[in-house]
């Protein structure tokens, strides 16, 4: 039975984190434990994804053996699997990269346990099937991220972290309140059970969704939007990622915002975008996605420091994912999922490249950079591949996600959004070419010659290069071997579009019985106990 083993995605980082607390003084051991833990999760993620795809199952574990609507369910379907694998890959790359980027003193300040704790929270939020548990996962993740943001404790970091903490506390408070109201409304917080109830009410012409359901959905959208940095709520992101150590910025930029997007992708098609309010909610998501895409990329083009360009770019890419969610067809959701994992990997790779560039020049200001092509061809090639992947040039990984989303949006009235998406793509190219031109292609500016010795810098960047190569290699794999990944992403899209397999796997109701109660308006109500008797 594989079902119960999925808890290992939380158990491994927790165990590794605990052990690396005791080895905090020994850098080599701590690093080894961290790499083994993250590498193990990547391997396990790939294997489980393959198995679940081959057997067409959703793995479900009921924690503490308390059955579904009452206990907390941990669910591994294609969406969770893909995102967990991608997140662990990104974390592994950024983690290896950080060995060269962090001062040993900072590393000894519980950097290793904190990374594991962060991944613990991220994995829990991808796997959990319970709205309140999702909040808990967010909190675990955020607590670790607060500490990681302020590693080193410079004044600039603390100022930014203060805002970040305050904002996230606000979001968390709203989240808990909303979860409480959802519980008051439906008497359950289990996502599958919520979905069952909402769809049943929706299918029955005699019943109506409770008043205020749409308001709750929008409040939740606000919370996830704040975490995921959607259009009006992204103001905190550029400054926060700008100040922290570059490997950590890469990890955050790659993973953290996607947790917000994931939460929308998971809960909205399943629960909160059902019913008469759905038109309004989809409209909000669509408009927000257009603004997020376009304003994000405009912000990136206007900046002149690599870190800022990349940070604001994170926002722009979130817009594409939101666009995929707004269309809400199986294909569009699949495209959104593919784009999400591509973006996690590539975005982090670009941040890591930026770290290496900084080591060469001592700055990330494009006015002071230049001539890196001559100094470090290897880095230039890596950056070039990552940048073009981000832009979405075929056959690199960014292409497929964008293609699916934009094509899927084209025939409907989403056409405008597709045009915005294409425009954003070209502006993305512009901003990446800006880094390429100023940083690599141009000669070193005379006023600010680079003083570091190139061979020494390269020698000191072995771990950093390993991390970058690993992530760029993954990005290339996503591009050139897109077929298997696309297959899994498609399955994820189908699972998001059609809630029946998810609900029946979690609540152990026969899918056919469930389908009758969810879809045929005149059918008699199927209660849980009756359905349980009917299932073999």
């Amino acid at each position, binding site marked *: 039975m594989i*079902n119960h083993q999925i808890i290992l995605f939380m158990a491994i980082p927790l*165990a590794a984190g*605990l052990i690396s607390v005791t080895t905090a003084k020994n850098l080599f051991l701590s690093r080894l434990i961290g790499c083994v833990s993250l590498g193990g999760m990547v391997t396990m993620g790939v294997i489980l994804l393959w198995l679940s795809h081959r057997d067409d199952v959703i793995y479900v574990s009921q924690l503490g053996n308390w059955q579904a609507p009452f206990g907390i369910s941990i669910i591994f379907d294609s969406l969770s699997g893909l995102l967990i694998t991608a997140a662990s890959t990104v974390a592994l790359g950024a983690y290896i990269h950080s060995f060269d980027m962090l001062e040993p003193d900072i590393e000894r300040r519980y950097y290793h346990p904190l990374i594991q704790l962060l991944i613990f929270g991220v994995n829990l939020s991808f796997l959990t099937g319970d709205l309140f548990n999702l909040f808990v996962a967010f909190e675990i993740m955020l607590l670790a991220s607060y500490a990681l943001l302020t590693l080193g404790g410079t004044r600039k970091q603390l100022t930014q972290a203060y805002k970040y903490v305050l904002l996230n506390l606000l979001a968390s408070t709203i989240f808990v309140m909303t979860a409480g109201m959802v519980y008051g409304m439906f008497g359950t917080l289990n996502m599958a059970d919520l979905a069952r109830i909402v769809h049943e009410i929706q299918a029955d012409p005699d019943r109506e969704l409770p008043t205020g359901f749409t308001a709750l959905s929008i409040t939740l959208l606000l919370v996830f939007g704040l975490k995921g940095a959607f259009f009006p709520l992204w103001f905190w992101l550029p400054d926060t990622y700008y100040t922290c150590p570059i490997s950590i910025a890469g990890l955050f930029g790659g993973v953290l915002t996607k947790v917000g997007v994931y939460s929308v992708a998971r809960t909205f098609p399943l629960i909160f975008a059902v019913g008469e309010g759905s038109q309004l909610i989809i409209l909000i998501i669509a408009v927000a996605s257009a603004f997020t895409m376009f304003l994000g990329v405009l912000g990136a083009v206007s900046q002149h420091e690599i870190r800022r360009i990349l940070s604001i770019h994170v926002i722009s890419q979130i817009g594409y994912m939101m666009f995929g969610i707004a269309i809400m067809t199986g294909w569009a959701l699949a495209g959104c999922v593919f784009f999400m994992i591509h973006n996690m990997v590539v975005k982090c790779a670009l941040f890591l490249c930026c770290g290496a560039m900084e080591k060469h020049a001592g700055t990330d200001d494009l006015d002071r950079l230049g001539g890196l092509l001559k100094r470090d061809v290897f880095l230039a090639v890596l950056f070039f591949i990552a940048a073009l992947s981000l832009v979405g040039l075929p056959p690199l990984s960014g292409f497929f996600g964008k293609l699916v989303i934009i094509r899927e949006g084209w025939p409907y009235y989403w056409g405008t959004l597709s045009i915005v998406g294409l425009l954003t793509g070209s502006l993305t190219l512009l901003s990446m070419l800006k880094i390429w031109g100023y940083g690599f292609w141009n000669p070193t500016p005379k006023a600010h010659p680079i003083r570091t010795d190139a061979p020494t810098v390269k020698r000191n960047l072995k771990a950093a290069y390993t991390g970058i190569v690993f992530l760029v290699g993954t990005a290339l794999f996503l591009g050139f071997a897109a077929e298997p990944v696309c297959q899994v992403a498609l399955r994820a899209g189908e699972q998001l579009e059609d809630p029946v397999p998810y609900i029946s796997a979690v609540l152990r109701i026969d899918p056919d019985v469930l389908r009758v109660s969810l879809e045929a308006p005149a059918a008699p109500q199927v209660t849980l106990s009756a359905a349980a008797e009917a299932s073999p």
Partner: protein
Amino acid sequence: MTSLILQTASKLIVPLALLFAAYMTLKGHNAPGGGFIGGLCFAVTLILLRMGVGPEVFNRMVPLHPRVLVFVGLAVAFLTGLVPLLMGYPFLTSYVTDLQLPLGASVHFASALFFDVGVLLVVVGTSVGMILRLSQEVEA
């Protein structure tokens, strides 16, 4: 700063409060209480003790840094969850039995107790650690 009244009173209160903390922890299986509440009672007791006898004596009585308790508690809770997983049940599944004692008595025992003890240790470690740190700054 120690006062004779508090010192004398704490001698009486501390054992009682510790008993109460243990009671709360054990009671928590099916009723209000449990590791978190028990841990808070425990922590308050330790802080009262420190106020009564003063920091030097307290440090001699409790040689462990509270930070260690957080680690141990997490490890205990984690291992409690892991054991059922190795035996083929979901993570954190509790084993429940009635232990027969001599004279016909029996005790309802659940292995979730170890998890609660882990929580207790984490709570004690965190809250006492924080208060110690704060009071160090005040006293310095």
